[in-house]
């Protein structure tokens, strides 16, 4: 009897081990990829960030001196751009949320047979490149473009004024470019809501507005959290929008990193800035998720 038991036990264990092996096997390509294209560059970047120019002063030559004050210098000299990055990203995220939530709500609950078409329209901009779309906005908002001409004709905008090269156009570009990243997760969480819960809420004396506040909104919170993260994180590191739609006065930290790497060829500062940006975003995201308590959300 005992022997039979032991055998059964072994047999029950065998598939578990097998399942584990298969899991590792399936993870292997992804892990390898991350190791080569994420972990190694990150280590390389960390190493670069504490270097100083080589004694020969040759361009692009640096030696490792473990100068950690590189970080302090990098931050102090670029505080303004850091602050601007997070401010612009925050405003763009709020705008995107304000536009995406009603849009996602309409697609999830009110679009009927047009649902799939509307979803395709949301992702349609991805069919052209990010750069081209931003260049298109430059044309649209430019001095000779239709928006400025129309506003000037109507007398809303003074004859000499422009829209491009302002904070407004940079934030507009960020909002536009990251809108699908906000819309899709919110749509997914709204679409998953059981319609009968909304009926139950109505049955329990909640009118439409209360049902939205007490049932729909809390149940879509995971989508909102995902959407805001997917918008805020890339937006705060973005430099294309500020470069094409803004002026040096609107430059964000991405622009500084870009120019340190490719124009000034100051790798240590660029690497230090990248690390500071990453760390700050990480801290902000952790605070944000903690505050909302997403693990409590369904």
């Amino acid at each position: 009897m005992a022997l039979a038991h032991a055998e059964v036990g072994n047999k029950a264990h065998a598939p578990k081990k097998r399942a584990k092996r298969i899991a590792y096997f399936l993870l292997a390509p992804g892990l390898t990829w991350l190791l080569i294209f994420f972990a190694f560059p990150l280590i390389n970047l960390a190493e670069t960030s504490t270097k100083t120019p080589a004694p020969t002063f040759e361009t692009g030559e640096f030696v490792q001196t473990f100068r950690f004050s590189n970080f302090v210098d990098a931050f102090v000299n670029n505080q303004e751009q850091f602050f601007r990055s997070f401010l612009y990203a925050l405003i763009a995220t709020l705008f995107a949320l304000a536009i995406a939530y009603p849009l996602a709500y309409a697609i999830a609950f009110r679009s009927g047979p047009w649902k799939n078409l509307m979803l395709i329209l949301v992702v349609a901009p991805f069919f052209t490149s990010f750069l081209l779309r931003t260049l298109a906005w430059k044309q649209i908002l430019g001095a000779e473009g239709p928006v400025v001409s129309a506003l000037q004709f109507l007398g809303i905008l003074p004859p000499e004024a422009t829209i491009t090269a302002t904070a407004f156009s940079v934030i507009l570009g960020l909002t536009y470019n990251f809108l699908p990243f906000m819309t899709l997760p919110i749509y997914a969480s709204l679409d998953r809501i059981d319609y009968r819960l909304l009926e139950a809420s109505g049955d329990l004396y909640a009118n439409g507005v209360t049902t939205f506040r007490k049932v729909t909104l809390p149940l879509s919170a995971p989508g909102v959290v995902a959407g805001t993260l997917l918008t805020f994180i890339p937006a705060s590191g973005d430099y294309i929008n500020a470069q094409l739609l803004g002026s040096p006065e609107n430059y964000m930290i991405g622009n500084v990193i870009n120019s340190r790497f490719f124009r000034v060829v100051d790798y240590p500062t660029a690497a230090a800035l990248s690390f500071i940006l990453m760390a700050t975003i990480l801290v902000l995201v952790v605070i944000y998720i903690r505050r909302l308590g997403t693990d409590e959300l369904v």
Partner: protein
Amino acid sequence: MSEPKKVQGDLVLSHVTKSFGDFTAVDDLSLTIPKGSFFALLGPSGCGKTTTLRMIAGLEEPTSGTISIGSTDITDTKPYERPVNTVFQNYALFPHLTIFENVAFGLRRRGIKNVDAEVERVLNLVELSHLKSRKPGQLSGGQQQRIALARAVVNKPALLLLDEPLGALDLKLRRQMQIELKWIQTEVGITFVHVTHDQEEAMTMADTVAVMNNGRIEQMGSPAELYENPRTVFVANFLGQSNFIDGSIEGTDGDNVIANLHGVRIVFPKTRNNANGKAVKVGIRPEKFRLHDAGSSAAGNVLTGGIITDISFFGVSTQYMVEMPWKQELMVFEQNDGGAPDLAKGDAVTLSWEPQFTFALDGTDPSQAK
């Protein structure tokens, strides 16, 4: 946050019709459900019972007709304005709220500040107050069902609607919940309208059962009345099992009707005759038959010349299949109390039954007779 009006009284549906395009789900339904009763709407899926319930809840709008509680017409009011609460089929508990907040939801929406005592009271009623800080996902099906009930009952509605609330439970739990539901209904004294396709559930719990078919009520009455005196083949078949023997009515004798079944004369009370013309389907429940050895005398209506073709032992009773001379098989249940003779397959038997147990249905009833 609107406070539902304090309406009380009988629920009255008057000529209510609901159409979805060409399909008529509920067809000119008129119905009065007395205050404080346990009313069951029984029928197969697609008969219009759930649509009727949804119209009472305000989740569907009737195409025509009116719905009122007491003297208040609620036909055009929104669900949240009605003194009606529903226990949904899938329970529809809010997954993001605790059990306590689920139960308190209706009270809070009506602006009641101190909900603790009330919530605690109904949680005790369903014996789950120890789970109040859990989320619905952490509860079993039976517990969720009881919370759904508590969430509705706590509002003290004029009317509580139950949409097949026991459908997802296993048999044992269902029996237990049936008893509890009935007990809670007596305890809180509010009108329950229960929609189900389970005839046993309807019969054990409800004071009044309405059998629905194709958007209409076929028959309404107490469970015993529906079982003993069904007026259509559909009702007879939906509630329990029946034998139907085709015959023709020959005349009357005092309070009795005389009918001819394949050459045999039988009688039954006039009050049990639902046939419109001469053609009649005589219905006898299997347990109403008595079995006798062929040749022995029997009282009441008697059918001779049966041959036993099959015997199944059920414990409390035994089921016999008896083939009659006109090649129809009749089903007979005999209690295993020693009253029936020892019989074996192939034995010749005589069947008898008391005339008052007969129910005579119209011979042209279109429903499929078994």
